[in-house]
């Protein structure tokens, strides 16, 4: 890349400022950078200049523009086959479904006895709790409760989870999931979860519980997912049997 100096066009200089801040981590993966208007105001340039400064970074895959939300920093990502770690393959009934996620709740809190045990951390350690609703073609599919140790993904609180998946966030921070243990139970839905899933209270649902580990064997997340039974089912291939 050509050296950018004070003689370079202003949009190129701005591009390098933003690039430098992404690389230094000041603009953290998964979070939004200041709005185009804010950047324009800060540096006394017009919005079009900001736009062309950011365009190349979007092109390079360092930034991602999301309609109506802003411009987000994309971390380094590892390409992978999702199925490799999906386990019980959750099949959405019907084809060509458009997935969607809505965050219902999120908070930073103390792990407490229960989640300290589940995540293998101290009860005084902080965790992120995220509750979200997943859908396909606008129809609710599952309500998920996700618990993540804060020290593993320090910026998770600012990551926009409607733009990036949690898996993206883990990878941005170097905790790619390599192993997971999952169980499947049947539960009865109480009124609130039932309402979110648009089924009658008392309906049966599939409860999917998953503990995922990174390459160092640390638990990255503990997830409980309540799945509407009429919208998905699970398939699994039996592995080779040891001789």
């Amino acid at each position, binding site marked *: 890349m050509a050296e950018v100096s004070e003689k370079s066009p202003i949009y190129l200089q701005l591009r390098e400022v933003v690039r430098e801040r992404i690389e230094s981590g000041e603009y953290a993966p998964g979070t939004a950078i200041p709005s185009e208007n804010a950047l324009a105001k800060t540096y006394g340039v017009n919005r079009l200049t900001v736009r062309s400064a950011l365009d190349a970074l979007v092109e390079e895959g360092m930034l991602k523009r999301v309609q109506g939300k802003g411009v987000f920093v994309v971390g*380094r*990502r*590892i*390409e*992978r*086959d999702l199925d*490799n*770690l*999906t*386990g*019980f393959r959750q099949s959405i009934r019907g084809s060509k479904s458009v997935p969607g996620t809505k965050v219902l*709740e999120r*908070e930073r*809190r103390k792990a*407490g*006895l*229960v*989640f300290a*045990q589940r995540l293998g951390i101290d009860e005084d350690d902080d965790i992120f*709790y995220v*509750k979200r609703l997943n859908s396909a073609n606008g129809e609710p599919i599952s309500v998920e*409760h996700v618990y993540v140790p804060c020290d593993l993904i320090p910026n998770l609180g600012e990551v926009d989870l409607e733009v990036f998946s949690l898996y993206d966030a883990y990878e941005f921070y170097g905790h*790619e*999931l*390599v*192993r*997971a*243990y*999952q*169980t*499947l*139970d*049947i*539960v*009865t839905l*109480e009124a*609130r979860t039932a309402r979110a899933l648009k089924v009658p209270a008392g309906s*049966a*649902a*599939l*409860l999917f519980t998953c503990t995922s580990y990174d390459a160092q064997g640390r638990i990255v997340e503990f997830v409980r997912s309540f799945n509407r*039974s009429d919208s998905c*089912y*699970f*398939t*699994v*291939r*039996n*592995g*080779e*049997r040891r001789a």
Partner: protein
Amino acid sequence: MGSRDRIVEQVEAYIIEHDLKPGDKLPSEREMCAMLDLNRMTLRNALERLSDFGVIESRVGQGTFVAQPKMTRDLQDTIGFSEAARNEGRTPSYRLVYAQMCEANKDMVKHLHVMLASPVFALRRVNQIDGIPVSLETTYVNARLCPGIDAHDFSHESLYHVLEEEYGVIPASGSESIDITRVDETEAELLGVRVGKAAFYQSGLILDAEGQPVEFFRSVVLSDHLRFSTQLQRVRQEKVDE
């Protein structure tokens, strides 16, 4: 977190804090309500969820107890029910519903890749763990692989054991799917549960080492006593994308 989730967590924390083991009794609902400053209804909702999680069990007239862990059935292995139960230190047993030779119908032709009217061994049993019914399994075995298999007494013999030991047929791989069903009258009676109770509906096909279909099965599995599990490992074939 919603209040119910919080109460569920508080009760679980109580169990951990007091180091309660399976079979230990929890304080009465009245005591817990006072302890956690809740009304009876709210507590009951939370207890119901914990019961669904398999953490506690309510015994009518006796109170609430820490539940025995559910038996975990690993979906990635191809071992039979009895071996899986024994691996967990449980005692498996069966209640035979029927074991008979029949002719392959269209459905069996499709799954087992056999000719219409070819011999098929049909076996239906209630699988029990420590004497408690946990699933009703109906399986159809390609009897060309195991002629005379109906001479065995399947009220106590393991199907996989017989297939391996006597016929050298080793279930090696397969695929299955899991869904929710409501138990019908026949199933309810055999499993000793109420009609309409939600249960797993598991169906699958098992192949031998050559990839030939050995059996296809359909099971109604009670979630109260059994949960399914999978263990996943990332396949190392990544390329870093910058």
